[in-house]
């Protein structure tokens, strides 16, 4: 019988992953926060909380509200900064067998490049994931992710500053995700992650006030899964680089849906909050599925949707 490792080992963006299951940025801290609850040595990858060149304080409360089938967050990218991550978190994190992928953001291209420069000194990092859903304050505050030119520009700049594979994380809040995916691929991205949260809003009908301090925030959880599957499907048809599926994944069935739509890896986000061992169950479940369907490796399933 084939081992789980044989069935699940998969290559993506030039990195070999022990299995296709990672924890999504902003839902696993810096990875170590989950070490008491899951086996980090078994996890495919940790995509860290978004890191910036300098630490960020984050938004005023309330930062989260539960909605039907999901939640809205406006954390404000609170983080310890790339330097502190390299000095204080990375040495312990790299003791584990998991792949380490810092998620990186900035409010200008220089800020992205600066964060990457700091992380380049860190040992044990396998790739970077760029969160491009931030406003570009130097270009009128429009999000990098919403404009093919700006998305390509930031990708190219980071590609130049980085010795490691660069994964670009796309936003669903766009008219044509295929167009952005192609622009980012052409600019040198090694892979795409999709999707980030969908912009949402929730109002308290008694106070008539928004339920989170920031007024709007990012919707995540099972509620956005069909949108995310659609984005992966459309991007798979548009580009050749590998895709990483994210959005409402909580079970093996959810993960399989994304893989069949075209994802080589998947990330579990909001589910970590209500079911911390979701990633572990999905890893076991994917191996079981491969055996059941006589697949010698999970990669055989990628993009096999009959549509």
């Amino acid at each position: 019988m084939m081992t789980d490792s044989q069935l699940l080992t998969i290559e993506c963006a030039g990195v070999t992953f022990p299995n296709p299951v990672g924890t999504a940025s902003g839902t696993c801290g810096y990875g170590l926060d989950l070490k008491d609850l899951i086996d980090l040595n078994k996890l495919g990858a940790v995509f860290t909380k978004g890191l910036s060149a300098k630490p960020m304080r984050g938004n005023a409360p309330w930062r989260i509200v539960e909605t039907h089938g999901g939640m809205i967050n406006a954390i404000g990218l609170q983080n310890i900064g790339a330097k502190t991550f390299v000095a204080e978190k990375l040495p312990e994190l790299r003791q584990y067998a998991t792949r380490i992928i810092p998620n990186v953001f900035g409010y200008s291209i220089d800020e992205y490049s600066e964060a990457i420069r700091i992380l380049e000194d860190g040992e044990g990092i396998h790739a970077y994931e760029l969160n491009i859903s931030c406003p570009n304050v130097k270009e009128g505050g429009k999000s990098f992710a919403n404009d093919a030119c700006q998305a390509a520009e930031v990708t190219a700049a980071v590609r130049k500053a980085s010795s490691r594979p660069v994964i670009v994380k796309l936003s669903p809040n766009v008219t044509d995700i295929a167009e952005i995916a192609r622009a980012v691929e052409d600019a040198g991205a090694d892979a795409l992650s999709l999707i980030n949260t969908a912009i949402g809003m929730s109002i308290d009908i008694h106070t008539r006030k928004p339920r989170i301090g920031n007024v709007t925030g990012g919707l995540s959880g099972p509620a956005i899964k069909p949108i995310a599957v659609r984005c992966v499907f459309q991007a798979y048809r548009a580009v050749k680089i590998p895709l990483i599926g994210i959005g409402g994944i909580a079970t093996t069935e959810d993960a399989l849906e994304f893989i069949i739509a075209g994802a080589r890896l998947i990330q579990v986000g909001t589910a970590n909050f209500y079911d911390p061992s979701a990633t572990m169950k999905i890893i076991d479940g994917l191996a079981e599925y491969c055996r059941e369907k006589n697949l010698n490796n999970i990669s055989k399933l990628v993009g096999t949707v009959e549509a």
Partner: protein
Amino acid sequence: MSTECPRDLIATVERNDLFASTPQSQNKSRHYGFLQLRIPQAQTILPGQFAMLKKHGIYEPLLRRAMAYYRVTRHDGSTSVEFIYQILGRGTESLSTMRVGDPVDYLGALGNTYDVQATKDKNALLVVGGVGSAAVFMLAEELLKQGTPTRLFIGGASRGDLLGYDDFVELLGKENCISATVDGSEGERGFVTTPLERHLQANANKPTVIYSCGPDAMLHATAKVADKYQIPAQLSLEAPMACGIGICVGCAVAVKHDCAEGFVYKKVCTDGPIFWHEELHW
């Protein structure tokens, strides 16, 4: 006291009693539940800690709800834990539908604990309101064990909202349980901070520590009293929580810090839920 790492387990409902309180001259009742769970493991649980709970196998609502441990009984190889909850919205409504024997998603024990050492050779005053009383019962037990003179100030809308009142009376003695209700159905009419202040005026020279848990308005009022009489106070805070284990950063509270803005955000779930009142940037 050392904290064990949290465990994600399936617990079983041993008791889930619902009750209501209707304040005089009001026709709107408040509904509460008294929940007892059996955890299939011996656990060390400290006063002030909390668990994240959800009916097992239910995904509406999605997120677990934070509940402070009220009482804990250790058995051989298992632990009985009790909670008191107010039925407010979707999460607590779902908890209220659980029957004896039902499985429960249980993540605990979470958060820090009160600084009990701070009351060595001092008096302790527990100031609580609503379901906040749940978070100090184990503290009261601990303080008694240490020999600290302990007095409870408990407030609520009505007699039925003084949750755990009878248990506190049994533990501390009636003379040490001072109550205030908004409708005057038990103790004095009004807010509990009034008898608290009277007590502090009468005992001005006694070194004292306040421990408090309750609605936001009560915590603010208690902090003000603590400032006025220059008494240290430990407050058990609430915040909307998605995870309870430090990974979502949703539960931010502003804490004073030596920087340009004068504060940073800390996490109520892992840095708290208990903070000294003078730490808070309110």
